[in-house]
């Protein structure tokens, strides 16, 4: 069973997110904060650009997002594959947006990824299990 152990005393839950490049030839791993309150997965602009997704393309769809500074419209791109906590989702829509460097992350793992699975978090032990949801 895919399982991640984290420091239960940590301020937030950080996991690694693996993203496949636009041409499918290489991958990136970035730290993201697990956020069950976020509708979308977010990835930093520089990371998406290096992976060949061109978040600066003005023709990209814009996702309306609510941030700490109000409402913004951020580019939305479909990544070929994203994997975290041992589980993978193909063709995941992600929002290109930069979180503050002080957060220690380069993105956010949101519900549009997590909803494909059964997520169990044991907060006192600092253990996360992500398993395939049974229908």
């Amino acid at each position, binding site marked *: 069973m895919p399982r991640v152990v984290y420091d239960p005393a*940590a301020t937030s839950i950080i996991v690694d997110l693996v993203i496949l490049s636009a041409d499918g030839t290489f991958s990136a791993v970035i730290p993201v904060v697990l956020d069950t309150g976020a509708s979308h997965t977010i990835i930093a602009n520089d990371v998406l650009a*290096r992976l060949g997704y061109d978040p600066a393309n003005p023709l990209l769809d814009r996702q309306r997002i609510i941030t700490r500074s109000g409402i913004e419209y951020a580019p939305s791109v479909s990544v070929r594959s994203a994997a975290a906590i041992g589980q993978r989702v193909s063709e995941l829509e992600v929002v290109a947006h930069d979180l503050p460097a002080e957060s220690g992350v380069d993105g956010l793992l949101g519900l549009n990824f997590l909803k494909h699975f059964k997520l169990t978090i044991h907060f006192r032990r600092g253990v996360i299990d992500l398993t395939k949801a049974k229908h």
Partner: protein
Amino acid sequence: MNVIKGTTMAKRSFFTKEEMKRKFPDQWLLVSDYKLDASTTLCKGRVVAYSKNRDDIHRALKEHKGNFCIHYTGQLPKDTGVLF
């Protein structure tokens, strides 16, 4: 306080994640040749650049070819909350 300005190319060495935390405390790392465990979590890799400043690592990405991993060895202060 030891402040590192700009990206410094690290000696090309393989480190486990625990070793990275000890050798590069509170730094952003650019890691290549990385290995992940079954939970797609970083286990070890080759540190090719490190900096206190995330922007330096993002700039270093432009020069890097192939698979890469960004890893931060620090932690938020216990008295700092996070709201996105």
